[in-house]
């Protein structure tokens, strides 16, 4: 017997249709309640959109599309632009994905595998789940007091010393930087990436794997030539979902990024992200234009994260041909 809803397996018999007028009230009430609850969710989403969009209107009208390309953020002269925050959000998320991707895929490959060091799998899964539960503000606290000094005294000088010919590793370092924020984000994004990728890799049919091994390929070759290509769409979806999480992360990033609304080619520089500026300046935006600009930033952030999420889920769904697991 498959699993599904009662509706699909037990269709409404004609007898009940004849007696429709006398259908039991309890069922009607129950169905009504359930549907209302469902509609409530849709209503909440609608309110969400309205709550963001309407206060943003003054700024949308004033700046138009130029808002997205302007580098200026000046509350005194009331000239606002989103570019420094878009830049900061993208750069930190990219750094996070660059760091988290190899580690995440590697760990996912390990966890998805059935043989090989089985006794490590359970503790590792447990550790990853624990990491997923740690609140953002705790990671930010650790980042601020432990990671920032470490970056300033060891990591950033080391990078500058070794690969300092690259412009992204030049400039002075105070510890709070795009790079530090990227590292913090990588730590936060790792659990989701691992969990999703593991599910995707597990879904690769065993027969394919076994056939490849039977033909004499090594495990590494099987992984590289068979499993990963097959799982490509799903892994891309997993990466995009993790990216979506990184884009929206607020508190931990605010504590280590340096709060400077400026575009700078160096990863050691201080920057600002969309969520951070909202967290910092929301309570003090005086005047409809300043407020509108912040709401517009919020709108841009929400739209970007929605777009990334939708794209991701399309990819993951298409790959698995159904609903993905809810361990996220």
């Amino acid at each position, binding site marked *: *017997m498959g*699993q*599904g*809803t*009662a509706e699909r397996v*037990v269709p409404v018999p004609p007898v009940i249709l004849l007696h429709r007028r006398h259908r039991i009230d309890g*069922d009607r*009430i*129950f*169905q009504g309640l*359930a*549907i209302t*609850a*469902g509609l409530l*969710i*849709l209503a*909440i989403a609608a*309110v*969400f959109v309205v*709550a*963001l969009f309407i206060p943003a209107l003054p700024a949308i009208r004033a700046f138009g599309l130029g808002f997205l390309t302007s580098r200026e953020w000046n509350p005194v002269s009331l000239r606002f632009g989103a570019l420094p925050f878009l830049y900061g959000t993208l750069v930190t998320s990219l750094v996070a994905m660059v760091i988290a991707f190899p*580690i*995440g895929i*590697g*760990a996912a*490959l*390990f966890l998805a595998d059935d043989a090989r060091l089985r006794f490590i799998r359970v503790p*590792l899964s447990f*550790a*990853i*789940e*624990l990491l997923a*539960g*740690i*609140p*953002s*503000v*705790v990671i*930010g*606290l*650790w980042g601020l*007091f*432990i990671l920032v000094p470490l970056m300033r005294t060891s990591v950033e000088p080391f990078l500058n010393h070794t690969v300092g010919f690259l412009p992204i590793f030049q400039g002075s370092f105070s510890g709070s930087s795009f790079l530090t924020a990227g590292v913090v984000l990588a730590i936060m994004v*790792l659990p989701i990436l691992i969990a999703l990728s593991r599910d995707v890799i597990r879904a690769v049919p065993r027969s394919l794997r076994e056939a490849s091994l039977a033909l004499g390929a*090594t*495990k*590494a070759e099987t992984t590289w030539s068979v499993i990963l290509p097959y799982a490509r769409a799903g892994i891309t979806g997993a990466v995009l979902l993790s990216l*979506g999480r990184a884009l*929206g992360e*607020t*508190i931990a990033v605010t504590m280590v990024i340096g709060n400077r609304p400026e575009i700078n080619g160096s990863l050691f520089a201080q920057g600002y992200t969309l*969520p951070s500026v*909202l*967290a910092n300046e929301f309570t003090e935006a005086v005047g409809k234009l300043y407020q509108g600009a912040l709401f517009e930033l*919020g709108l841009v*952030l929400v739209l970007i*994260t*929605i777009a*990334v*999420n939708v794209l991701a889920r399309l990819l993951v769904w298409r790959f698995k041909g159904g609903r993905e697991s809810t361990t996220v």
Partner: protein
Amino acid sequence: MNRLGLRVLLDRIVTTLIIACVMAAAIPVFILLLFVLFKGLPGILTPGFFSDLPHPIGVPGGGVFNAIIGTLIIVGIASLLAVPIGTLVGIFLSEFGRNKVGDSVRFVSDVLTGLPSIAFGIFGYTVLVATLGHFSAISASAALAVLMLPVILRATETALILVPNSLREGGLALGAPRWRVTMQIVVPAAVGGIVTGALLAMARAAGETAPLLFTTLGNEFLQLNPGRPMGALSLTVFKNALVPYTNLQDQAWAAALLLVIIVSVTNILARLYVRRAQR
């Protein structure tokens, strides 16, 4: 080395790399937990940490009693809002949701899951603070409830789908109405998954900071009235992290440790409950 040898070597290297990735993935959590434990334990063990209110700044001592109560009240009210509604929506999706309405609800729920936490804070501010004219704990609860809804909803739907249809058919065959079958047979069978979902959502809500920043604002005094600004543990960590007073920074670490303990214990309990319920 011949061709085969090369391939085997490559295989070994890849295996080593994967082990390295595994270690790299496992290390952050240990580093994080060790530091939080190491730096937070002195603060937690300080007498007065749990029972005292914060002292004025510059004065040593003080505690986080107001924040603990605040977190309990705020998350409590949020759960009262989110758990019934979320469960009901989950039931809707599982039993009546194989249609366009159900699909759009699922889509919206997925979208909500991916939103930045600060967006919920803005939602809470616009809907309940700007309109009512003052900061309050209840606006934070509302923001958190919206954040918790997708989690509970999904967990409920999944748990209900996993209940075998034979149970439903059996109930219907005995002549029970649909709502009875659902509420008295199917839901109790799925209660493990539902409770887990609720617990996980509550743990997540307890740790959130951004939705609280401009909804509940914060309060150094004990506040039991949800219509007024209230303190919370996550806010305490955030604010105290940024002050130069060492006694307050110590309290930030201690509050962080407390949060981690609460969240981790809740997560572990939730998982254990599922395992036991499945037996």
